[in-house]
């Protein structure tokens, strides 16, 4: 792990008169995977949108790179009632070369013939891999990803997380991930930020995620079992 890539200090976000994020401070280092945990309505999506300048805020957000890509949750993508847009044309919106598109398609395990298919006419799993390809086609340094596996079956979830892990390893990618999946926190996070409008815990998962913290985050007793090998 090397230098800082993001520094957030005393961040407050108020939307329509409602305080969504209160006095949040954290930082992200290069090649770090930060997972943001929290119940629905905790301000996770608001935090990601604020970090890329889509929401007004007070406090400090300092990025040490401009090479940032963001993927909203899949449910927020309009897939029905669109014009007959091909997936290839969707990638054309980013003004990248077709060689780059083919490379990233191969990296995410998608067949190039999919480029001719209509935008909405692919399975949920393929769609999510296609979105990852879109986010990474111009080789960003940072990926902000909101609920990458929502609506995807368990097999598909595995694929998405291993893909992200591979890009993290091979492309030196810094990842900020919003998820509800605690397993992934143990497996992939360097740091975890527990959010429920304010900072409830922040640090290395094994140090900060405890039954007591989980109860604080989700408001109910959650037990976890850590399987240890000899």
């Amino acid at each position: 792990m090397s230098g800082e890539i993001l520094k957030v200090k005393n961040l407050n976000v108020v939307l329509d008169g409602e305080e969504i994020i209160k006095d949040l401070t954290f930082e992200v280092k290069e090649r770090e995977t930060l997972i943001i945990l929290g119940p629905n309505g905790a301000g996770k999506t608001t935090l990601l949108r604020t970090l890329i300048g889509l929401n007004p805020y007070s406090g400090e957000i300092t990025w040490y790179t401009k090479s940032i890509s963001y993927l909203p949750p899949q449910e927020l993508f309009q897939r029905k009632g669109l014009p007959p847009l091909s997936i290839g044309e969707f990638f054309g919106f980013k003004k990248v070369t077709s060689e780059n598109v083919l490379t990233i398609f191969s990296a995410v395990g998608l067949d190039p013939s999919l480029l001719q298919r209509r935008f909405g006419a692919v399975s949920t799993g393929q769609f999510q891999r296609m979105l990852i390809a879109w986010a990474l086609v111009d080789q960003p340094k940072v990926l902000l990803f909101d609920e990458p596996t929502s609506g995807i079956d368990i097999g598909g979830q595995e694929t998405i997380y291993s893909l992200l892990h591979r890009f993290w390893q091979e492309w030196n990618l810094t990842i900020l991930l919003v998820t509800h999946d605690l397993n992934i926190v143990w497996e992939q996070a360097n740091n975890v930020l527990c959010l429920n409008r304010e900072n409830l815990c922040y640090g290395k998962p094994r140090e900060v995620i405890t039954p007591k913290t989980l109860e604080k985050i989700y408001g109910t007793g959650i037990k976890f079992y850590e399987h240890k090998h000899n």
Partner: protein
Amino acid sequence: MEFIFALIIGLFLGGTAGYLGTLMLSQRMALVAGPLGHLTLPGIALALIFHFDVSLGAFPFVIFGIFFIWLFEMNTKLPMEALTAIVFATGVAITFLFLPEEKTVPALIGDISQINFPATLISVVLSLFVFFATKKIYSPMILAGISEDLAKTQSINLKRYHFLYLLCIALIVALGVRIVGGLMTAALVAIPACTAKNVSMNLIQYSYGGFLFGSLSCILGMVVFKLTDLPIGPLIVIASTSFFLISLLFKR
């Protein structure tokens, strides 16, 4: 000569309206052109009474209409289609308060008998402006239709593009009332776009298909008008609908 002028207008204006229509259809706004067309009726009425260009009369009214829809949308949070209905009904009501009965038909269904060179030139230049403006905003607005956040992360200034988009709609409606009247402007944008959607596999085919079907509908309608002397507006709309019905056989 008037007929040649009309054909030139049909080619450029019909094509551009169809092209813009494909974008409007993708934004679920294809029907907005209808109420906006109705809204131009007071302007057309004034133009017919005081003998000036109908598009010139229509333009300020459609701009007023768009401004009020935008203002009501900001302040009431009511859906755009509801606000459009309010504004369009008001436009029609005002028109029939003072439009002389003999002027009603040309105002409602179009008239190409008074087309001259300056009107043709203005229509062609403005159609070209709308075409190139639409081309500029096309991809960003389609992307915004898929995900507004994704578009914003590509540094797309959606407010500016939206303004340009509304201006293009206003211009096409104001120009379109000349050939199809205030009653049927939606047909100029909506039907060619639907036809293009039926036969297209990708965005290029779809957008330029809208242009092609828009142009063909206007030209075919005008040719039939020349041969039969039936009203021009309905003929263009029927030609457009015929292409739409044929496209259903080739739906992809």
